[in-house]
């Protein structure tokens, strides 16, 4: 039996609730959970002011409601599972170290920012800076998987070092900006400046997209040898890759100069 939290009062300003995290809740009784501090703007309030709480002492957590204004859920979580029914706000699973976050709804910006391990699944759309580095940091996500079935915003995977980001839909500008490693898979392509200033790492697009002028074509109609491996790794996450497709391989960004790979499905 896990813990179920239901939003009972709509925040009027952002509600910062990093305590909504298995690591914190797993050791708390129902009363202790009710008394955990959350921040409604600058006001420090008990969790029970905004949430109805059922269950205690578990790292299996379900949260229900329109959580668009609720930020920092699952910050730094290292275990357990967070299931969210409804839209959720910024910084979901930021600095995550392990465990699973599942969202049925849309998510905000900065999900999985600087995460190290674990899985985030969004059954919906997400905002920008997914798996990205926070301002000034040298590295974004360092491991784990982020899967968004819908579309996503700007700077997806900015400065990521390792790990996988899968976006079912399309992304906006600067996907894989200054990427240092890892893999980004784009189901429906991206707007512009994909892979700008990337150093290493791989961006795979299953749809044609605008390639930066500072990427050179390396091979046309190429079947990447690692695709079956990637497909196998993703199958367990419920993601199926099209088989036996060939791609155009671009290298860049020459401005850095970097050795990143951009694979675009051959037309």
């Amino acid at each position: 039996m896990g813990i179920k939290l239901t939003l009972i009062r709509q925040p009027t300003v952002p509600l910062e609730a990093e305590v909504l995290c298995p690591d914190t809740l797993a050791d708390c009784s129902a009363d202790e959970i009710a008394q955990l501090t959350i921040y409604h703007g600058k006001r420090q309030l008990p969790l029970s002011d905004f949430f109805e709480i059922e269950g205690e002492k578990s790292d299996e957590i379900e949260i229900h409601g329109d959580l668009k204004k609720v930020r920092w859920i699952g910050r730094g979580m290292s275990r357990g599972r967070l299931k969210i029914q409804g839209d959720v706000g910024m910084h979901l699973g930021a600095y995550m170290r392990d465990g699973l976050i599942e969202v049925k709804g849309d998510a905000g910006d900065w999900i999985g920012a600087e995460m190290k391990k674990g899985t985030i699944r969004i059954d919906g759309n997400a905002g920008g800076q997914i798996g990205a580095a926070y301002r000034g940091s040298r590295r974004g996500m360092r491991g784990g998987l982020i899967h968004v079935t819908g579309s996503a915003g700007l700077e997806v995977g900015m400065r990521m070092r390792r790990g996988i980001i899968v976006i079912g839909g399309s992304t906006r500008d600067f996907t894989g900006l200054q990427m240092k490693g890892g893999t980004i898979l784009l189901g429906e392509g991206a707007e512009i400046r994909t892979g700008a200033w990337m150093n290493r790492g791989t961006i795979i697009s299953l749809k044609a997209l605008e390639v930066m002028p500072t990427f050179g074509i390396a091979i046309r109609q190429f079947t990447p040898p690692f695709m079956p491996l990637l497909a196998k790794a993703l199958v367990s996450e419920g993601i199926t890759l099209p088989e036996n497709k060939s791609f155009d391989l671009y290298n860049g960004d020459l401005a850095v100069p970097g050795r990143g790979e951009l694979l675009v499905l051959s037309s």
Partner: protein
Amino acid sequence: MGGKVTCTLGEVKQRADFIIYWGGNPAECHPRHFSKYTLMQKSKFLPKGRKDRTMVLVDIRETKSVKASDIFLQVRPGKDFELITILRALVKEQQVTDEQIEETGLSREALNDLVSRMKAAKFGCMFFGMGLSMTRGKHMNSAALLTLAAEMNAFTKFVAMPMRGHGNVTGADVIMRWQTGFPFGISFNRGYPRYNPGEFSTIDVLVRGDCDAAFIIGADPGGTMPQPAINHLKRIPTIVLDPHITHTSKLARVHITTAAQGIAAPGTAYRMDEIPMPLKPALKSPYPSDEEVVRRINEAIAKKPFWLPEGSMPQMVTEQV
């Protein structure tokens, strides 16, 4: 990440033999920039003044500044970032194809010429305006130019500087940096400064409806911001300080008329190169200064109960759980 390599305007006046204006129209927006700081001045290093300097203008359209330039490069709208990134590659002698270059609206010859002039310069300076920093790509467009300038130092002396408009916006930047560590986009809701443009920057905050009161000073968002942002300002209590009744005053709960800075109010303003200048007001205003009114609001708030409950200590938001 790159960072920022810059100088004061006097350095440009004395030394810059190669000047690029990118996405700005100084002839109309900063009318004395050419004559006072960059093109027209003679110095001991550049005794012939204008004749000793080369000026390149990069913009999406011909403006009045073209007349002052030696070379005008018309970049296709929305291609500034691509063009700067190509230049970064060309500077490092990386291969970029003709077709790729032409997508920016410019020819290989033009870019080769630009790169060789940049490398041959003794002291190069790039100024960039809102045509670069406020168009698609925004901060990344500025970062691109700053990075190009930093990288040029492998070949010769090069610096870059934003052409800040809007009066004393530079002063706000500088002061926020020393008081909070960050230049803008700050939240104190945990009792200490946090920074995240996009999260705490005003347009985003207003469009998402993230604040429940607004204090507006020395700006008129009611006349300049997108409609959803203005709608939120109408919904919440808004307070305006301004020498005039502005668009924002008209939607505000409170307006206080103040003396205009530098005309009727004394103080300091920072130049775009972060040099502070003393203000010498000529007129005596019937209105109080911004400084006085905000200080009195601070004093009135100090008399009310402090928002952090006694003995409470808000947690920092960090990587540590």
